Every structure is written in C-alpha cells, then in structure tokens.
C-alpha cells in the first residue's frame, strides 16, 4: 500500500507484530493490533522509531486512543503510522491524535494530506498536535483586553 507523510520522510524499518516484537524488544519498529496494550511499550518508547497502529475498518476508532496515549502519556516521538482503513476524511482526526505517516490506497490521498491542515482553523479540544484551543485563545485575548 502506498505510504504518505506530510514531510515525505518515512522509515523503511520493517515493523514486527507485537507478539514477535515482545520476543525481540530491542527491535525499533513494532506493529500493534488495536486491542494490544500500548501501555506495555512504556519502557521502550525511547528506543522505538516506528509504531504502526491499525484500523481494521475505518469505522473502528480504537487506534485513535492508542495514538494519543503513545504520544501524550508515554511521550513517544518516533514515527506513528496508521494502516488499514485509512481514508482522507479521517486525516483531520488522525493528525490531531499524533499520527504522522499513513498507508492508504485511496486515490488522491496525498493531495488531501497536503491540504488537511488548511481545513479547520479552529480546534476546541487539546490533543497531540499542540494546537491552541479556542478556549485558550479566548483566554489570552481576554487578558490582552480585560474588558471583553
């Protein structure tokens, strides 16, 4: 399946399925099912360079939580790849949850990815992309103009 990222750079490391990887935890690339416990990666996140999370169907959203936990809770900074049912209309959500590479065979996916960040100028909730939420922006605006 074609692989995409905003920067164009992706690793060529071959990820091991979680069960195999547990036998060889020194290997820097792992692929998780969306029922695998991301918490178990905690001692290894510093070493990992690629984690692949899977969407068995595009409508199965478990990997969004896995992604946020990896980024936000475990502090993983390597490549986080989405695979399986990955469609362009999920990209705004995926980018916000911390995914940065995508396997998709949807036509036009690359063009869509390049435009995704232009779709929404406002976000309402904190996530893994460090965008300032509307409510934070309002606060700072109020602090500049306390009367408002």
């Amino acid at each position, binding site marked *: 399946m074609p692989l995409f990222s905003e920067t164009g750079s992706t690793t060529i490391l071959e990820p091991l399925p979680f069960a195999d990887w547990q036998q060889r935890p020194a290997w820097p690339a792992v692929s998780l099912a969306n029922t695998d416990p991301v918490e178990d990666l905690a001692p290894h996140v510093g070493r990992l360079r690629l984690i692949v999370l899977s969407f068995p169907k*595009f409508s199965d959203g478990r990997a*969004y*939580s896995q992604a*946020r936990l990896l980024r936000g809770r475990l502090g993983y900074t390597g490549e986080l790849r989405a695979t399986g049912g990955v469609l362009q209309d999920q990209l705004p959500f995926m980018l916000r949850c911390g995914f940065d590479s995508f396997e998709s065979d949807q036509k036009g996916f690359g063009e869509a990815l390049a435009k995704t960040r232009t*779709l929404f*100028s406002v976000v*309402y909730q904190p996530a893994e992309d460090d965008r300032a939420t*509307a*409510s934070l922006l*309002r606060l700072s605006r109020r602090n500049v103009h306390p009367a408002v």
Partner: protein
Amino acid sequence: MPDTHFYQPKHFYQYDDYDRALVGERVEQFRDQVRRRIAGELTEEQFKPLRLTNGLYLQLHAYMLRIAIPYGTLSSRQLRKLADISRKYDRGYGHFTTRQNLQLNWIKLQDAPDALAALADVDMHAIQTSGNCIRNVTADHYAGAAVDEIEDPRIWCEIVRQWSTLHPEFSFLPRKFKIAITGSPNDRAAVRVHDIGLRLWANEAGEVGFEVIVGGGLGRTPMIGKTLREFLPRDELLAYLEATLRVYNRYGRRDNLYKARIKILVHEIGAEKMREEVEAEYAAIKDGALKLPAETIEAIARQFAPPPLPHRPAVVAEVEGLKLEDRDFALWLKSNVAPHRMAGYRIVTASLKPAGAPPGDASAVQMEGVADIADAYSQGEIRVSHEQNLVLPHVAVEDLPAVWRALGRLGFAEANVGKITDIIACPGLDYCALANARSIPVAQRISNHFAELARQHDIGDLKIKISGCINACGHHHVGHIGILGVDKNGVELYQLSLGGDVDFGKTAIGAILGPAVTADKVVEAVDALVHTYLDARSDGERFVDTYRRIGAQPFKERVYAAV
C-alpha cells in the same frame, strides 16, 4: 449587513469568530465530501459516516436532516431561520424530536451543503447529530427559568458541546453517545437513561458539583445508569468525560451492534470495575490541559446570565377574571403554565400536540408564529422540550391571556401538557428506514379519541410514549403507557408496557403487559387501561401510582377482554 441579532441582547451562549469559523469550515468540508460522493469518488459505505456526522440520514422517501438545537435553546431569529430552511429546502414543516433536535424529512443530498450553510448563518449546525460519536448534549428545557434550579445546566452543555465537537479521538466510537445535563433536583432531562447523565447538586459545604451517571439508555436493552461519581468538582468535568470516553472507546464492544453501547460495557464488567478504569484514567489526566480555568467557566456562565426581567405584577385581575370565565384558559393555566423563578413570570409550554396532529410537527408558519410570540412576550427566546413541545421561558403573568390567544391562533394552545394526548411519538414507518410499524397514525387515533379536554384533565397526568421499533426514539420504555410497534409477518402489532417513568429518583422501565395487539385495537386497549385506572384510583393518585399500587393484573384482564 445590518442584523438585528447583534443589537438584541441574548441570554444564552452566542458564537464568537472561533465558533463561526469552525462551523463554516465544517460546511465547506462537507460540501467537498458531497461533491466527491456524487462524482463517484466515495462509495456509499465510505460516505455514510460522513453524512451521518453532518446530520444526514437516508430515510424511506428522502434524506432527513437532523439539526441540533443545543440544550434546546433557540432565539426567535434562529427559529425563523429554521422555518425558512424548511420552506426552501424541504416541504415547509419540521419535526421536533425527543433529543432537542429538529428533523427535516425531505432534504436532497445536493441541497444539504446549502441548507447547512444557511443554518451556519444563524450559528447553528447539524454536526454530530448522528453517527457513532458524541451527540447533541441535551438539558432541562426549563433551564434558567426553573424555580428549583441549582445552576443553569446549559453552561455545562456548551462547555461539553465545544469539547465534543470534532473530537479527534472520539469520532469513531463503538456506537452513538448521548449526554444529558440537569441543574435541578427535579430532573427534566432524563439523565438516568443516557450514556452519561450529569446532575448538578450542592454538597453540604455548599459546593456545586456533578453526580456522574453512566450506562443508562433505552433501546434494545433498556438500563438505568449507575452512579460512577457522587460528586465531581465542576472544573474537572471535561477530564472525567474524556476518561470515560477513552475507556469506552478502547474497551466497548464492536463485534455486535446491539452490544456496543456503553451500558453493555458497564453491565458486562460491572459498575465497580468501570469506576476503577475511569478513575485510573481520570487520575492520569485530571490536572492536565482539560482542567477548566475559572475564567473560562465564568466567561461562558456570564452569557447565560438570566435576562433582566422588569418587575411585573404577580396577581393580575384580568387573568383571574378570564380564569373564571373561560374553562379552556383555566385548564391551560393548570397544565401548560409552570412557575418561574421570578414572581410575576411563568414558563409557558406551547403544545405541539393539538388533537389529531402528528406529535412534534410544526409548519413553517407555525414556527414563525412562535418566534413572533417569543419576541413580543418571552425575551425572544424559545426552548425545545424532550417531550416534543416548544417552551416560552419568560412570560409575564400579565401577558398570559395574550400569549394564550396567540398560541391558540397557531393551534398550539391545547391544554394538554403532561396529559394523555401529550403523546411522544417517533416518526415510525411513515418515514423511518429502521421502523417496524407506524407511530404517528397510532398517536393521532389516541389523540382524537381522548380529545375532550375536561376528560383529559380528569384522567390527569399520563404519559404515552410510542416507538416504531426497538430503537426507542419515542422513549416507550419510560412511558406510563409505552407502545412499541413490532412487525409480525408484515403485520403491524403494538406491544404495551406499563409503569415506566423518568421523574427523578423514580426512573423506571415499564413492564410488558402481555401479547401485542393489532393496530385497530390500540385505542380500545388504551381506553381499557384508562378505565381500569379510573375505577381503581384513590384520591390524588396518578395513573402510574395506581398501577404501582394494584399491579398489572387488573389492567391486563380488562385490556385483553376488550381487544
């Protein structure tokens, strides 16, 4: 463009440029998705969740657009716009639902983006009114006006609305997710039958917080929610919700559509284990970015500050006189008018259930009429109740006769609120692709049969709720009399249940009475139920009280002798 909206003070949340930008951008995103679908670039399977999260269903005869009315609060300007949209893109009428939404039944896919853009003009949307995501958050329709209110729940609904809108983690949940919030001990938002119900209350120290109730719901497996947290500090609400949703997103069942709601997860792992999981997740995030700064809460709360209502007399001779002269007015005062937190004011319910009408439907002209009445007599504000009526929250006692007459001219002054003809009914098989049987014609027949107002008032409070299938959009499980349409070999049958309730502390799921009855026998069956009650009741007892006292047997005997 001059716009009166900016000059008319409002007493609920008003969009700022951030909110407007987001809703506008969402419309343009959807416009592109519709274009790609029509061009064949998206399959129906791929497109369906996209249109659903923009409120667009495919029903039997057309697309249906479900418009969110957040916390059931509308300005007159917004209601006029809804009328306008219904005329321009639909057939000039709409259906107010049990979840404080408005459904338009005859929308074209190709028009949907324009209809949504028109909605955005008045700061409204249809985002997440369907799909497996967090739905429109509902609230007490008397919020901000009720006598018994501890705090206006809409402040919190708005905070939750923003947090849940396009939530990147929770847009593909196992199943839909419904949240309701009440600020009164007298729950009018049915918080115990929602995925999450939140009840504001003041503890002994006088601090206000939430009771968090999780895993309630109707549908195939009706359940009453369990209290996960007795008291949650208000500023930790979003962290607690995020923790709960995360546990649900990770562990909720996805193998079986009918077992995918959070209530099944709570049921299967038990409330204790659920609490542990949620509390552990919550502990990890509670001091993070979701903690609500006091300034943020205050800024939103300020927008819900009660309107400065001028002093008006509490006792008015004209009202007292009319009450003696006109029986219908007297009955209307009794059933459709509720106390207001300010002396000299009342909360008025416009009944969208005139005798024989499809429950909850209003024509464009009627919507505009209600908007005019709200401008003249209710601070330009309207509420939508989960009982499918419209509410004028701030009416002066002095103005009651005028409001009554004006509503009467619209056919919305039926003195039947809470009575046997104030029927809740889902769209049923006339519209709905999932239905087993019709709901509206059944409601119409019952309504016509019991149309006589004095008789209705004699029968007293009696809630009939009708669903056309087990999805229970008509909340039949919590009707004093619940009616569920089922299909047997292509024939519509109706299953009756008794004893359901949603009053706070008394939330109960009705029990099935016996074999389902045919469509032409439903009225006889209901009539038999009513007669059983009338014969057996003791003083002051409502239908459901009598049922609780004497049990199902007498009702059963009389019904099955009659049908």
